[in-house]
């Protein structure tokens, strides 16, 4: 098998890239570890921010269905339940399919769109059953329709924490509160407003000290922290809960990038180590592209735009798209990306992205 473009990850960025590239006649193969495509879009039951171009106001899972439909219409080949475990110097993509052993495909271009992983924080008892990542809880609720807990405590008041609190309440759980180490809510005020109106408290300057219960979580001990982040003696409080959701940020799922020898750079605002790439999303390893959260943790709509950008760049490189037209399309996408990175929340990310591109040109 020799594919013009192999995409690793069938999430928002991977699918967007696949759709865009195959629109111009690129032969695409999309590989995903999960049994269903769409990535984290199917965990998202809230409506997305952005503009019309980014399907703003449409719920995440609906965007997922739309992308899948489009991919299907384009006849894009999908390889599901397949884990890519290596990219070799000759652009061989090695994967394993459950127990069916190993296989590989040769690619002319590769797009790594593996998304992000959840970070965790450590406290006594954090390994107990009942402590789980926010994404884990979302997956349980929205994909398998199982409630991960009846009384939930959320750790982290970033967007993910706020959203997951809202979603747990929607699914019928009793959310006892959202706690945040920093002195103010990290996520959007509007998300915080939603859960406050439901009567769910948000406790800033507080953190979790211990997950209580044996063998599974039956409660938590939380504590206030001072300005230095140190626990305030005597402010400990034990609360009953059977689910502790960790929503303490995401980091790029960068293992494939590291192992295939792409130059990486640590970027705090993008979640961790990110692959250095140019304006067309190509990394320091020629013909290997990145898009989406793996290239810096951002929103789903930026991921989709980055995917489109990479798809067009690859179509152009394969001479399926005239330079003039491609450059025009790329400029439009870059403008939209620029817009998505405006404002207090996007500023840092925009700067970090700019720096990555600068590093690449060196």
């Amino acid at each position, binding site marked *: 098998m020799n594919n013009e473009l192999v995409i690793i990850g069938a999430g928002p960025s991977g699918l967007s890239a696949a759709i865009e590239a195959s629109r111009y006649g690129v032969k695409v193969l999309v590989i995903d570890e999960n049994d269903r495509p769409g990535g984290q879009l199917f965990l998202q039951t809230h409506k997305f921010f952005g503009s019309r171009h980014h399907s703003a106001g449409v719920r995440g899972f609906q965007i997922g269905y739309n992308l899948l439909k489009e991919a299907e219409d384009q006849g894009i080949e999908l390889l599901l339940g397949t884990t890519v475990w290596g990219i070799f110097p000759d652009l061989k993509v090695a994967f394993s399919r459950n127990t069916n052993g190993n296989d590989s495909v040769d690619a002319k271009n590769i797009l790594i769109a593996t998304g992000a992983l959840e970070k965790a924080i450590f406290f006594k008892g954090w390994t107990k059953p009942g402590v789980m990542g926010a994404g884990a809880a979302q997956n349980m609720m929205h994909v398998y329709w199982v409630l991960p807990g009846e009384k939930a405590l959320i750790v982290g008041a970033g967007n993910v924490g706020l959203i997951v609190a809202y979603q747990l309440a*929607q699914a019928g759980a009793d959310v006892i509160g959202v706690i945040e180490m920093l002195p103010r809510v990290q996520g959007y005020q509007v998300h915080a407003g939603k859960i406050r109106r439901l009567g769910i408290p948000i406790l800033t300057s507080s953190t979790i000290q211990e997950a209580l219960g044996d063998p599974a979580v039956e409660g938590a001990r939380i504590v206030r922290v001072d300005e230095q982040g140190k626990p305030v003696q005597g402010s400990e409080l034990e609360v009953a809960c059977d689910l502790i959701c960790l929503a303490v940020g995401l980091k790029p799922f960068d293992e494939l990038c590291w192992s295939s020898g792409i130059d990486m750079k640590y970027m705090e605002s993008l979640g961790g180590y990110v692959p250095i790439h140019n304006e067309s999303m190509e990394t320091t390893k020629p013909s290997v592209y990145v898009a989406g959260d793996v290239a810096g943790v951002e929103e789903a709509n930026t991921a989709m735009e980055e995917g489109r950008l990479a798809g067009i760049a690859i179509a152009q490189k394969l001479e399926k798209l005239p330079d003039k037209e491609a450059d025009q399309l790329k400029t439009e996408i870059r403008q939209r990306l620029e817009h998505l990175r405006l404002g207090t929340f996007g500023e840092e990310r925009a700067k970090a992205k700019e720096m990555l591109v600068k590093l690449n040109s060196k």
Partner: protein
Amino acid sequence: MKQKEARGIEMRILEHPILDISKDRKKVTIIVDGKNVDAFEGETIASALYASGIKVHRTTAKFKEPRGVFCNKGRCTDCIMKVDGCPNVRTCNTMVRDGMIVESLEGRGEWEHLYE
């Protein structure tokens, strides 16, 4: 609250304000540590276990600590169990099958078929 009453002891979400919960999924039965547990075709072992209130999947080798679902996407391997005689199977990304035998793990478990 109404959702909770409808749910009973099962942790299944029966209705959701946003999602359409399918009512006609095919029921299967898996055997967990000798007991029958209801599950639906197309779901993972982990979600079937959570739905019936089973949260502890294994105990660790050194400190005998309980472990259950943590990342729910196949990364952390906290949720591994013995499935059809094979130890260390990730239950969060393994789909149920009717009659599947699932067992809790102690430490790294044992290979039964090794000594057959």
